[in-house]
């Protein structure tokens, strides 16, 4: 286990401005994320994993890709990303709500694959 697990609650508290129960975003391994580029700095108390996450996510990447590049378990990165989303440093790029891909999207994917 990395120290990331242990010291996380404190950092989370810092990032979310002291809110005790940040809202939980539904993050899947394929959820697309991108750092919010508004020049705002992370608070001094933010941890190195959060900093590394935002640095890595300057362009769009899925949660699982972030986990692989940061060499951390996806479950841990989901928690870090969730806090960064709540605090407005990170944004979800892909629509997060659809439960199953609909026919239109599936057909688009199939068309795309056929053009390879």
């Amino acid at each position, binding site marked *: 286990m990395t120290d990331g697990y242990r010291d996380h609650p404190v950092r989370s508290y810092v990032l979310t401005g002291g809110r005790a129960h940040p809202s939980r975003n539904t993050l899947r*391994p*394929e959820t697309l994320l991108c750092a919010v580029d508004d020049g705002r700095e992370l608070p001094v108390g933010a941890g190195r994993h959060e900093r590394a996450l935002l640095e890595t996510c300057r362009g769009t990447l899925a949660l699982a*890709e972030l986990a692989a590049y940061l060499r951390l378990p996806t479950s841990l990165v989901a928690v870090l990303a969730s806090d960064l989303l709540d605090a407005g440093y990170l944004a979800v790029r892909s629509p997060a709500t659809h439960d199953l891909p609909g*026919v239109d999207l599936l057909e688009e994917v199939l068309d795309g694959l056929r053009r390879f």
Partner: protein
Amino acid sequence: MVSAGSEAPPVDPASLHLASTVERSVKVLVVGAYGVGKTTLIGAVSEIPVLSTEETITAASLGVDPRLGEKTTTTVAMDFGRVTVGGTTALYLFGTPGQKRFWDLWAGLADGAVGALVVVDTRRLEDSFEVLDQLEEHTALPVTIVVNEFPDAPRHTTDAVRAALDLPADTPVVAGDLRERRQAVEALQALVAHAVRLARAGDAA
């Protein structure tokens, strides 16, 4: 391959970011027994080097497995790749062994997936029973069987494979050398086409 804890130099993710035109993602699972060719298939299709993460799972999700002794957690490696289709959609391929004892880990993965490619080796078809049982029991995912044609594996008709695996008549079965991109892409096409048919049938009902 990037893997947790390996000595490989870090990859620069800046070169691996998705194009700014990409606005959504979908995923398929690539499941099957150890050594059937899951990682090979993912690598043949992926536009980025195959990535890997190590996931920690707890004893509760492991059930009773004497091989794991007193350990309360274990790690499972998951590999995955990505391919951008039609300029706007990132398709992720997540590979996992899919054994029953790892169910909790890949249950989350199955959630919202287009479907599952089940890779099989005809020299040991019985190794695929467990993963097919798990898919059937716990998910409603469209399934496509991918027979990895190893040089010394016996050749069977798709009907014979379907019968041996006790699958519904409409389950697509494709075969090929999964090191070849074209054949790996054809397997993906077969799965997505099947998912389209099932979704249309569902919408009509």
